[in-house]
Structures are given as C-alpha cells and as structure tokens.
C-alpha cells in the first residue's frame, strides 16, 4: 500500500504524531470516484446534494480513478460490471478505500439466491472496508458508514502490528 508498506519496527513519539497527521489528512479528504450502479446511487446522489452534503466531510466527486481515494459501490454488481469495478479499483492510487453500499453489493441482496447475473457481494472481487446495509440505505446511513471508515483510517498505523 505505497507508504503504508514501509512499516517501522518500533514506534516513537515522532512517528506517532506524524502518522496522526497523515491519517488526519487522509481521512478528511476522501475524494470519491463518481461512480454509481443502481438505485443506491440515487441515495448516494442525495447524500452529495444539499440536505446531507457529502462535501462537509471533504468528499468531492472526481471523475478519474487516478485522483480518487474512495469508491462507493452503490448498487447491484452484475457479473459484467464486476470486471469493470475491479479495473477501476486497480486504477486508483494507493491508499484507497471502498464502501460497499446497500444489500446488493454487500452480498447480492435480493438476488443472492436466484440472481444468475449478480455477483454475490462485491467483496468477492475487491476488499471492502465498510459495509453499509440498507436497501437502499438512507443518506444518513451512508454518512455513518463514512464516519466508520474515517475511524478506521484514524487507527491505521505505519508501525508494525504488535498483536
């Protein structure tokens, strides 16, 4: 993961403070790839619009995956789209994050049993950071998922994990 690969063997106060700063920068400026799939995308647009205002969290849409930090998989992932999602994800520069939004992208949703054309969960092709349940989730639920993701980024570390 680029910078995060270079782990320090032991932490000290300088590294701790630096990584706090870097984590803070990463979590407060998550540029989103403007990418929507199905009905959840409508809720995602509503989240970007005036009432919920994604921009408050520093999330702005970027058209190019090269400049995006986060991809919100919003809707039914068909098998055909899955390859494209994988490609888009691979085109994004590290560090990159994924929010899986809605039942369909979490596990196939209503199509989990009989949907011959639906990928049963987007985590089968790309690693998901946060799952937001809902069909579709309310905009607040997506915002809560984003806050959860920010919490996750806040606890990322350059140091080697001592677990």
């Amino acid at each position, binding site marked *: 993961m680029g910078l995060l690969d270079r782990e320090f063997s032991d932490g000290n106060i300088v590294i701790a403070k630096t990584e706090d700063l870097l984590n803070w920068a990463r979590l407060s400026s998550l540029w989103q790839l403007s990418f929507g799939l199905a009905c959840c995308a409508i809720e995602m647009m509503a989240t970007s619009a005036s009432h919920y205002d994604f921009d408050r969290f520093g999330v702005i849409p970027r058209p190019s995956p090269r400049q995006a930090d986060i991809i919100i998989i919003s809707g039914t992932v068909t098998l055909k789209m899955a390859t494209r999602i994988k490609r888009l994800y691979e085109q994004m520069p590290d560090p990159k994050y994924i929010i899986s939004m809605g*039942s369909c992208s*979490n*596990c196939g949703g*209503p199509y989990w049993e009989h949907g011959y054309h639906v990928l049963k969960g987007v985590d089968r092709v790309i690693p998901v950071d946060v*799952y937001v*349940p809902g069909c579709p989730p*309310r905009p*607040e639920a997506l915002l809560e998922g984003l806050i*959860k993701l920010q919490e996750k980024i806040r606890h990322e570390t350059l140091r080697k994990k001592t677990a």
Partner: protein
Amino acid sequence: MKEYLKNTWEGIWTVLVGMKVTLKHLFVPSVTIQYPDVKLPLPERARNRLYVNMDDCIGCDQCARACPVDCIEIETVKALPTDDLGVTSNGKKKALWVTKFDIDIAKCCYCGLCTYPCPTECIYMTDVYEFSEYKREDLIYNFSVLTPQEAEEKKKNYEKFMAEKAAAKAKAAAAKAAQAKTDNPNNSDKK
C-alpha cells in the same frame, strides 16, 4: 444582422439572470442537516433494521416463509411436556424452543413482509439505520436467546425424549402385540 444582435443580447442577458439567481442563493440559509450532530426525525412507520423480540417468539416460522429473499433462518425444537416456556404477551402458549433465529441483515431488503404474518407481533422494523460494519459476518444477527450449548442440550433432550417415547411406544406396541398373540388363537378359531 438583427438576429445576430438579438442573440448577443440574449446571451448576455440570460447569463445575468442566471447569475442573479445563484447570487440570491448565496445568501439563502443552507438546508443542510449536519448529520452526526443533528438527526432528522424519522417518519412513524419508517422501515429500517429488523428486530425480533424473542420473549414473544413462538417459533412458528411464518416470517421465514414470508421473506421474499430468504434472509431469515429458523430452527426449532419441540419442548418437553415438562418444560415450561411461558406464554407470550398476547396469551399464546409457547411450545417450541427456538434454537436458531438468524437474520442476515445484509440480504434483507426492508420490505416488511415478515412482520405481517407474525401471530405475536414479535418481529418488527425499528427506526435504527446506523449499523454499518467492517466485516460482513457481523451483519448476520443471531436473535436466539439460547446459547449453542443450550440449543444442543435442548435438541438432545428432545431426541432423548423422543427416543424414550419411541421406546415406550415400541414397548407398548410389543406388549400389545404379545397380548394380541395370546388372544389370537381364540379369535382365529372363530374364523
């Protein structure tokens, strides 16, 4: 020529009209709901996360059958005659141990169809919508109040009970058969 000048004028004028609108909106107070600090009250019948009140559940499996996406999984074990399961709040007597009541909330599509057939109204949709998770497994909700060991025990108990019952039955049947045998010669003679 006249049209050309008219086009020019309209081009400039319409842009100015548009700019007036946006300028007005610059000073309109914003409508944003600052989510984590301020939350919009939900409508009374909002359908969000499912919840099962296990105290009232009789394990009838009707919700699982109503679910269009099959996200509810219920397993039940019949209670022994000696077990007292109590009654539900609307006075129904419970007769089944619910050993497994899993709802895969990731699959749920919030249609609410499971809530209608429930005879005790123990499964219902709450207004909780903030439950995103880091792991998908965490989205499978186990509502069963029994621990796996307890469930296992209940199952064993029931099997034992059934086995005993079967044994008793078999014994009874054997006894009956034996008695029938002793009685038989007389009967057959009649024929």
